[in-house]
């Protein structure tokens, strides 16, 4: 039952990293990686949503849409589920943990349109690693952690970048793209 889990952990976090190998969720990767603290907050929020989204969409697809023959509706249904989930999580967080809400608050609505979240719900349907419900949830969780890993690494480098002199033509965004390129190359070597 658990034999696929190590393979899933390795694939979701490293060899099939959502940002650096599959190029999903590039927008927050470049937008929210200016400092490590907010990058970590964003990563954790994405991880939470990814996990809960897979938890709901996987059974929804396997036990409702697929048997009925409506599997082509997956995207619209999944987007629907993710958007509602983010809304629900935001409301609950606001009430239960004010500090966590303030730390994540601004990033939560952004996650609705984060393609990495939709990506994970779609990928678990086709990936050969995922057989059971448990696998799917593990893929969601560790995919999110892989996202966090990439965005935190990136933010650490961007913080360092602030203190070094960059050639005029590369200042600001271009050098960030180069950084992302080298990171992606490193991750593709798995």
């Amino acid at each position, binding site marked *: 039952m658990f034999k696929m889990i190590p393979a899933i952990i390795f694939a979701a976090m490293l060899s099939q990293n959502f940002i650096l190998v599959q190029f999903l969720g590039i927008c927050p990767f470049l937008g929210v990686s200016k400092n490590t603290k907010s990058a970590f907050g964003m990563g954790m929020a994405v991880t939470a949503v990814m996990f809960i989204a897979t938890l709901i969409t996987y059974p929804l697809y396997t036990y*409702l*849409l697929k*048997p*009925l*023959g*409506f599997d082509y*509706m997956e995207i*619209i*249904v999944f987007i*629907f*589920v993710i958007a*509602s989930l983010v*809304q*629900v999580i935001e*409301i*609950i967080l*606001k*009430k*239960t943990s004010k500090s966590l809400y303030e730390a994540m608050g*601004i990033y939560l609505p952004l996650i609705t349109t984060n393609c990495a979240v939709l990506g994970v719900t779609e990928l678990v349907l086709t990936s050969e690693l995922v057989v059971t419900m448990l696998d799917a949830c593990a893929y969601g969780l560790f995919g999110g952690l892989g996202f966090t890993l990439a965005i935190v690494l990136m933010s650490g480098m961007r913080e360092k970048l602030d*203190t*070094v*002199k960059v050639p005029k033509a590369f200042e600001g965004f271009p050098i960030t793209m180069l950084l992302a390129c080298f990171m992606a190359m490193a991750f593709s070597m798995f």
Partner: protein
Amino acid sequence: MYNLLDAQLTPVAHVLIVVGIMLVIALVFGFLIMVVSKKFAVDVDEREETVLGCLAGANCGGCGKAGCAALAHSLVEGKGEIDDCPVTDKKNKLKIAEILGVDYAGGGEFIYVVNCGGGINAKDRNDYLGESGCVRQSMVSGGRKFCSTACLGDGSCVSVCDNDAVSVIDGVAYIDTDKCIKCGKCARTCPKTLITKIPASAVVYVKCSTKCRGKEVMDACAKGCIGCGICAKNCAQKAITMVDNLPRVDYSKCVGCGYCVEKCPRKVFHFVDRTRDENRDKKG
């Protein structure tokens, strides 16, 4: 399970089923959100919205908060000051004070000044040959000057200013009050935190930030405050007190007579008005 696609549905029935599935999911989640929002309802102070409506809405971050909504929140909670916002005009600030039921007389507008007059008068301890910018320079054992609170004049504040309001004159940053929009970026950037707020009505300010004693100051800088306290003794309004070897001006008492500017043996006191300041230099 029964496969609906195999059942030779008419197109209309097919569409109806699709709509039906979406409708069911929509209802389930709609109900879920409704229940959750009822159960986890947070009491939001209604005044927050109205206060937010009165603020300038530029989201410039000049108050040091994440945006206007964050300032409105802290205002309602009583943690923030109305004058934290440099952009909102006086009419709206009075309106906010009325909503919150606090006393606000206005006149709390402020300007930014640089509390250092050193520059070419402050001696260098060593050369600095690294990349330009005070932020970088101050990382190397606090910059090249003897004085640890000296303006390095390397232009970090100049480069963050969007309005060309900051310039470096004789090795010291100078803020042009007419061009300054009071966003506070320079004050947050300065590694020595030499840029501070003073009331817009202020006439004089102290152009030094050193807390060192007289002798050390004499060795390091020709324009540094030696903490003699002559200004405090001579102020007729008792507006100046000595704190940590530095004069501190209580602007609510200061009448702007300029006697401190005249009396200071080290010419640490300056007029905010630049033409007046230059005229004094000529005389002295």
